[in-house]
């Protein structure tokens, strides 16, 4: 158990080792550790940000979808209204057209009835004259009795 120079030698070695450790070992390792810490922190922050961005994007897309749906609904309603208008208008046109046609037809019918009546009247007048001739056995001067005949025809 001799106390001797070994003690001093050990102290010198100790001093050198500590200085070496302080200069060449500790700083690079601490730097690497701190850099990694920073990297991890940055990565976590970035992922947070990305999650938030995703949420925002989802919200935005949902909103746009909702708007698009609303627009589409509006368009469909408009189209429906327009279609209804068109149908209504064409119905109206058709009705008018029909009425016009009916009116025309009625006018034609009236005209034809009048013609037929006139023809019938003339016929009847002729038949009456012929009948009267037969009865009188004489010819009736149509021109002389025209007045009477017309009176008769009017009575028919």
């Amino acid at each position, binding site marked *: *158990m*001799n*106390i*001797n*120079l*070994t*003690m*001093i*030698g*050990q*102290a010198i*070695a*100790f*001093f050198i*080792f*500590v200085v*070496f*450790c*302080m200069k*060449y*070992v*500790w*700083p*690079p*390792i*601490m*730097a*690497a*550790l701190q*850099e*990694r810490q*920073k*990297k991890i922190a940055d990565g976590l922050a970035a992922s947070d940000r990305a999650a938030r961005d995703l949420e925002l994007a989802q919200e935005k897309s949902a909103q746009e979808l909702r708007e698009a749906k609303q627009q589409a609904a509006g368009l469909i309603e408009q189209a429906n209204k327009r279609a209804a208008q068109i149908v209504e208008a064409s119905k109206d046109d058709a009705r008018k057209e029909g009425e016009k046609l009916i009116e025309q037809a009625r006018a034609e019918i009236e005209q034809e009835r009048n013609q037929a009546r006139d023809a019938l009247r003339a016929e009847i007048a002729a038949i009456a004259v012929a009948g009267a001739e037969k009865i009188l056995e004489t010819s009736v001067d149509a021109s002389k009795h025209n007045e009477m005949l017309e009176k008769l025809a009017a009575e028919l």
Partner: protein
Amino acid sequence: MAGSASEYIQHHLQNLTYGKLPAGYERADGTVIEDTTWTLAHTAQEASDMGFWAVHVDSLGWAVGLGVLFLFLFRMAAKRATSDQPGGLQNFVEVMVEFVDNSVKETFHGKNKVIAPLALTIFCWIFLMNLMDLVPVDFLPQLFHLAGADYMKVVPTTDVNVTLGMSLSVFFLIIFYSLKVKGVGGFLGELTLHPFSSDNLVLKILLVPVNFLLEGVSLIAKPISLALRLFGNLYAGELIFILIALLPLWAQWTLSVPWAIFHILVITLQAFIFMMLTIVYLSMAHEDSH
């Protein structure tokens, strides 16, 4: 394993010593030295007669070798240190560094670039030196005996010079930082005006020697206890290994294996205690507690 048990033990506890023998000294083999010579001691008596001017070649050699091994490994990791995925060595080194860094941060709150690397060096170096205790006690000495060395103590921390060398370095750091942080006056005040203090000036002066005695003893006790704690634990552990090695070969493992397993704890714990106490002492040196 020649000689009696006590010779065997003595032999194992003797360092390989290189030192100065005075002129006219009669060596163990009967020859008388004419001039003062530096030589290897052949016996324990010669080693102790060398006095202070001797070096324990084995202790210093193993200590420096293990220190270089530690620094080589850590320097390699530090060179390749990357903030990306670390490799196996870097992982290990980072664990050690973070462990030491946390220990330092928990205890020491000031700013000092020395303390953390100092603590790392202390922990790793002492751990490696203690670890040599787990090498079978006869293995390396026998190898060196074949190579011609008479004595070989492979566990540097079982040499009180080694532990004292480290603890005295720590002691000087304590003094240095005490003076640097508190100034000479502050440091002297801390040594002389506490723990007993008085508002009366005369009483205060009377209490100075008492305080100085108390504080001085507690200051000097720091490096002594630091060195002797480590030395005592490892020396005792080594001695028990040597005693176990005296048993018949077939019976040795029944004791040496449990003791070695238990010793793993002691080795780590002693390295840790030395490091922690160093940090505590240095942080006390930095604090203006009074």
